[in-house]
C-alpha cells in the first residue's frame, strides 16, 4: 500500500525528521498565506512534479486558484482528492536517501546519493559512482555508525556527514518499525543554516503486514482517499461480485478484453500460459481470469453466464493446469449449468475443455453426457489453446 506524501510525513514527524511546515487544504477553503507556498497534489504515484502535480503560489488568491486547478487535474491516471500546502524552502543542496528490500539478495538495502531530486534508477545507471547501496540485516538494523559508513563513502564529511547519517539511520528505523517495503526521502534538502529538511517522502507498506499496524489499517479503510482513473469496467465489477458470492475458492481477477472467445482459466501460472498461447494461435480472448482453490459450482456457473452475456461472445475455452485441489467435476458442472441457463448448447459453446487432475473421471462423465470432447492430460495447455483458437475463429 502506497502512502500519500502527507501520510508519510506524519510518520517522519513522529521520528523527529525535520519537515517544512504544512497542512492539507480542503477544497474551497479560504487560504491565508504570508510567504510563498508549495501546493502538492496527493496522489499515490511517482513522477508527480513532472506531471504538473506540484505548483508554487505566492499569494492567497493565486494559491486558491491553483488548489482548484490541482483538484480537477488528471495526474498520471489519478484525480487528487486532497492538496498538501507547505511553506516554500530554499535549499543549497539536495540529497537522495532510501531504504527498500533487495529481493534477490533477500536483505534490506540502504541507498544514499549526494545528488537528490532526480530519478535514482536513472542516476544509478548513468553514474553508478554517485549512488551508494549497502545491505543490512533486520536483526542488526542500521545503527548510526553503519549509516555513517555509507554516507562517508560518497566523500561527505564534517557536520553534514553526521546530519545525513542520522536521518538515514532513522528512516531505516521507520522502514522496519512500519513493515515498509519502501521509505524514500527525495529530495532531502540542506538549508542555508546547515539544517536538513525532508522535502518529499515516498513510503509503501507491505500489504501482508497491515494487520499489525492499526494506524495504517485505518488509512486503508478511509473512503475517498485516492481516486484512480483505472475504473473497473461494469463487466469486471460484476465478475468481482460473483467471486464474493461465497468463500469457496476463487473465480477472480477478471480483466475484460475485446475479443470473442470467453475464457475460464486457472490457476495463476496456467492462466498466464493459456492466455499467451490462445493469442499466439490467433484466438481473440474476451477476458482474462484466474480460477482456483476449488471454486463452488455456483461461482463457476455465474462466471460462465456473465461471460456468455457479453455481446459477440458465443464460445468459451476452459483450460487449467493439472489440478490437485480444484475438482474437475465441480468446474464441469458449473460450466455446463451456466451454458444451459444462458440458453445455449454446451457442446457447441465449449471451444475446449482441458482440466485434468482431481476427480477427472467424474468430470469427464459430465462432459460426455453433453457431447463435449474430452481433452485429457496428454493434451498440453498449448495444444488446448490451439484447439480453442481454431474452434472460435
Amino acid at each position, binding site marked *: 500500500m502506497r502512502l500519500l506524501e502527507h501520510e508519510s510525513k506524519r510518520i517522519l514527524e513522529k521520528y523527529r525528521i525535520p519537515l517544512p511546515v504544512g497542512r492539507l487544504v480542503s477544497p474551497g477553503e479560504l487560504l491565508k498565506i504570508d510567504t510563498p507556498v508549495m501546493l502538492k497534489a496527493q496522489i499515490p504515484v511517482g513522477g508527480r512534479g513532472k506531471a504538473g502535480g506540484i505548483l508554487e503560489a505566492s499569494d492567497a488568491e493565486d494559491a486558491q486558484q491553483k488548489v482548484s486547478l490541482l483538484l480537477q487535474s488528471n495526474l498520471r491516471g489519478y484525480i487528487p482528492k486532497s492538496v498538501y500546502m507547505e511553506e516554500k524552502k530554499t535549499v543549497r543542496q539536495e540529497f537522495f536517501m532510501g531504504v527498500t528490500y533487495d*529481493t534477490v539478495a533477500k536483505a534490506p538495502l540502504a541507498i544514499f546519493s549526494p545528488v537528490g531530486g532526480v530519478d535514482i534508477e536513472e542516476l544509478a545507471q548513468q553514474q553508478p559512482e554517485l549512488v551508494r547501496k549497502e545491505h543490512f540485516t*533486520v*536483526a542488526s538494523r542500521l545503527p548510526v555508525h553503519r549509516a555513517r559508513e555509507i554516507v562517508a563513502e560518497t566523500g561527505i564529511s564534517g557536520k553534514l556527514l553526521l546530519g545525513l547519517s542520522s536521518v538515514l539511520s532513522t528512516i531505516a528505523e521507520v522502514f522496519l518499525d512500519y513493515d515498509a517495503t519502501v521509505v524514500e526521502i527525495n529530495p532531502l534538502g540542506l538549508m542555508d543554516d546547515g539544517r536538513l529538511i525532508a522535502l518529499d517522502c515516498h513510503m509503501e507498506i507491505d500489504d501482508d*503486514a497491515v494487520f499489525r499496524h492499526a494506524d495504517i489499517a485505518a488509512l486503508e479503510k478511509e473512503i475517498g482517499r485516492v481516486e484512480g482513473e483505472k475504473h473497473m469496467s461494469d463487466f469486471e465489477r460484476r465478475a468481482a461480485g460473483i467471486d464474493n458470492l461465497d468463500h469457496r475458492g476463487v473465480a477472480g481477477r477478471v480483466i475484460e478484453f475485446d475479443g470473442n472467445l470467453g475464457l475460464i482459466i486457472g490457476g495463476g501460472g496456467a492462466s498466464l500460459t493459456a*492466455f499467451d498461447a490462445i493469442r499466439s494461435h490467433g484466438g481473440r480472448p474476451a477476458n482474462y481470469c484466474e480460477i482456483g482453490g476449488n471454486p463452488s459450482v455456483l461461482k463457476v456457473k455465474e462466471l460462465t453466464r456473465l461471460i456468455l452475456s457479453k455481446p459477440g461472445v458465443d464460445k468459451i475455452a476452459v483450460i487449467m493446469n493439472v489440478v490437485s485441489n480444484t475438482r474437475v467435476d465441480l468446474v464441469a458442472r458449473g460450466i455446463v449449468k451456466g451454458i444451459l441457463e444462458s440458453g445455449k448448447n454446451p457442446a457447441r459453446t465449449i471451444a475446449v475443455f482441458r482440466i485434468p487432475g482431481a476427480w477427472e473421471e467424474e468430470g469427464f462423465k459430465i462432459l460426455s453426457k453433453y457431447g463435449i470432447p474430452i481433452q485429457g492430460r496428454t493434451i498440453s495447455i498449448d495444444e488446448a489453446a490451439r484447439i480453442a483458437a481454431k474452434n472460435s475463429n
Partner: protein
Amino acid sequence: MAILADEHTRVIVQGITGREATSFTKDMIDYGTRVVAGITPGKGGQSVHGIPVYDTVRQALREHPAEAAVISVPPALVKGAVLEALENGITLAVVVSERVPRKDTIEFLEVAKVRNARVIGPNTLGLISPGKVRLGMAGGPAADVRKAYMPGPVGIASRSGGMTTEIANLLTTQGIGQSTCIGIGGDPVVGSNFLDLIPLFDRDPETKVVVLFSEPGGVIEEKLSELVMTQKLSIPIIGFIAGRFVDNMPGVRFGHAATIVEGNRGTTKSKIEMFRKAGIHVAESFSDIADIAKRYL
C-alpha cells in the same frame, strides 16, 4: 539422485492439526514420505493420521529425530514457527503458508543463513522428488502425483505451484522423468530462488537439464542470466516465461504477489532477452519444453 530431500528424509509438520495440513500430511504419507511427528502448540498428545502431535518442536524431535519441517500455520505465526524449527536443528524448512509479512521472511532467512539451513517458500506448494519424497501439497493426493510425476533426469523450479505439476505432467506423458520439482513460492522474497537452486541441480549428477517456469515481475531471471554468464554453469537450462501480454499492463498484479510489471521493470521481454544472451533456451510455446529437454537426454 534428488536435491534437497529424498526417501530417507525425516519430516515434521508444524501446524499439523490445521485443515490443509491434515489433508496434505495424509497425501505425503501415502506417497511414502517419512512423516515422523506433528506440532501444534496446545494440542500435544493428539494424533493425525497416526502421526503423534507435540506442543513444541523440541519435544517432537526428542522422540523423533528429523531433518525437514513442512510449515503450515497462519501468517502472523510463521516467523515463530520457522525460528523454532531452525533453533532446534531443522536444516530444510518448507513454508507453505501464504501472506507472510516480508520483514518476517527476511528475518527467518537471516537466521537460516547463519545456521546453514535451507528454506523453500513461503507461499509454495512444496517439492517432489518423484518416487522418493514429497514435501508440502504439490500434486495433490498420492495417486494423482503418481500420474503426473515419474523419476528421471529433469529438474524443475517454478514460480507457480500449479505449473510445477503441469510441467512434470507434460514431461511424464512423453516418457521423460524428473529428479526434483520445486515450487519456489509466489512471493517477491523466497528462501530459495532460481539463483540458489540452479547450482544444486548443476552439482547433481543425475539431473541432466533444468526447466524453469517464470512469470512477469522481479529481476531474478535477469540475475540468473548474469550468474550463468559469469560462472559458466554447465547444466542446460530451459526457461518458459508465461504472461507476455502482461508487459503492456504495468501496475496490474496477476496470480502471485510477485507477478507485476512496475514501470519497465519485470517485463517478460527483458527476461527473454537476458535468457537468450546467457544461452538459456527459451521455450516459445509450452510444448516446446519437452522437445528441447529431449535434446539433452
